[in-house]
């Protein structure tokens, strides 16, 4: 009897290995996912701000098994001639081999660069922060913020996690007061720290996976679900329900009805995360 139980528990693992799509399909037919979630639930999310003391602002975000750390370092830089008051905010995503067996050592992967670019575009186009708040002295010196988002554990949905980590790190950011001396040296007074940046809106990203057979959409896909699916949709909304960015890649199966349901789920998610962010920063 016990032998049989052992045999059956082994066989489902083997089944998952050799026929991942079939294994997955059987779960979906029962309206449940392999990790026990319903089709449109997001994984439990937690935020910790200020975990890295060497950074000017930092946050660690967990979405289920995905863990990312975002650290922001500030440096003094010379502003661009055409925008003498504007500072810089440079996001960068690192997916090193520590976080998953599927990543190889070497130069940044396409996935990491694509994610960094999406974040950068949203920051530029959607007017999230006022870069002139990073001005030290017009035309002479501004703060340049390097936001490095390092993935520590990868289990799918890196875009949502990176966005959330970046937002919380920006909320955590504090800079020393600085002035430019007549000898054109920038002097920073680290006993007087200020919180320079106000976020004008909170861009909250929600990612969905679309499956053709059976026809379903899944919220917050894990690594294995991402690998099985050919289409993902990322929707970035702000907390007022404005759409900031939509990205759908691959496949051709998505109809209008499906997109609509994704938008309503993204809206719910934005409200939920907004509350979580508020709670974390008030602590």
């Amino acid at each position: 009897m016990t032998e049989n139980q052992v045999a059956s528990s082994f066989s489902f693992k083997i089944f998952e290995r050799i026929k991942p799509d079939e294994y997955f399909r059987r779960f979906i037919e029962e309206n449940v996912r392999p990790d026990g979630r319903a089709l449109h639930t997001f994984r439990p999310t937690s935020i910790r701000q200020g975990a890295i003391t060497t950074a000017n602002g930092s946050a660690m975000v967990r979405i289920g098994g995905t863990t990312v750390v975002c650290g922001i370092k500030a440096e003094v830089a010379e502003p661009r001639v055409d925008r003498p008051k504007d500072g810089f905010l440079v996001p960068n995503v690192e997916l090193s081999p520590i976080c998953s067996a599927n990543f190889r050592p070497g130069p940044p992967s396409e996935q990491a660069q694509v994610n960094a670019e999406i974040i950068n575009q949203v920051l530029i186009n959607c007017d999230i922060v006022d870069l002139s708040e990073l001005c030290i002295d017009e035309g002479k010196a501004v703060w340049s913020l390097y936001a490095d988002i390092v993935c520590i554990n990868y289990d799918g949905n890196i875009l949502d996690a990176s966005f959330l980590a970046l937002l919380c790190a920006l909320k955590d950011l504090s800079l020393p007061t600085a002035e430019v001396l007549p000898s054109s040296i920038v002097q920073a007074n680290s006993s007087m720290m200020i919180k320079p940046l106000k976020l004008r809106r909170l861009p909250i990203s929600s990612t969905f996976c679309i499956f053709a057979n059976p026809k379903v959409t899944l919220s917050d896909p894990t690594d294995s679900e991402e690998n099985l699916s050919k289409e993902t949709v990322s929707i970035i909304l702000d907390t007022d329900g404005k759409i900031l960015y939509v990205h759908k890649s691959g496949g051709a199966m998505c109809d209008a009805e499906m997109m609509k349901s994704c938008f309503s789920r993204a809206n719910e998610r934005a409200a939920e995360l907004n509350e979580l962010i508020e709670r974390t920063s008030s602590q």
Partner: protein
Amino acid sequence: MSRLELLTVEGLRIDGRRPNELRKITAKTSVLAQADGSAYIEQGNTKCLAAVYGPQEVRHRMQILHDRAIINVEFNVAPFSTSERKKRSKNDKRSLEIASAIKQTFEPVVQTSQFPRSQIDIYLQVLQHDGGTLQACINAATMALIDAGIPMIDYVCASTAGCIEKQPVLDLNYLEESSDSPELTVAILPRTGKVNLMSMESRLHVDMLESVAALATQGCEQIHTILDSVVRQNTQLLKDSMLQ
């Protein structure tokens, strides 16, 4: 004098420690779900994460060794970990040197001959740097290898010691390390007391070497006690959960 006073008259150090005192060490294993073995270690403000993947198939066929496993170490420093943001490329020479030192430290300790034609990957990520990265990385890697269940002949425990105003001090932090005081990193196998790695990059009078090395070895033994208790505790938990 504008120079920082690293030792007070009472013999206390800049962070209030005694000369022969370690910083607080927190170690955890199995912190990453994706890796076969992982560990997180905090030594004072130095925070380091290690992940071990393998033994697994060798990635490049030409590297295959037919009598033993190869060990591959990647060392990465998060750009926000230091006080000055430095964008280090993956192939930065300094990182490669540290990775190679760690690789050579573990090669004789891991029983690689049990896994011929395979590869063991050790990935190290420094999240916050406050002196003693090499020792923190070695300690984290030991814990991650144990967590992955890879057979080793012993722990590898590493510690640093230096010399400030002719006084040997244990476990230097970043301020002490960067103020031109010599720093000696020692890694030992605690059971036999054999020295596995010894590295020093600045000037130290040869008469002082013995006392500094002795202090570092003492530190290694203390670290061994801490790491061993964490491993035993985890194993006990595992055993209890299996018996239930």
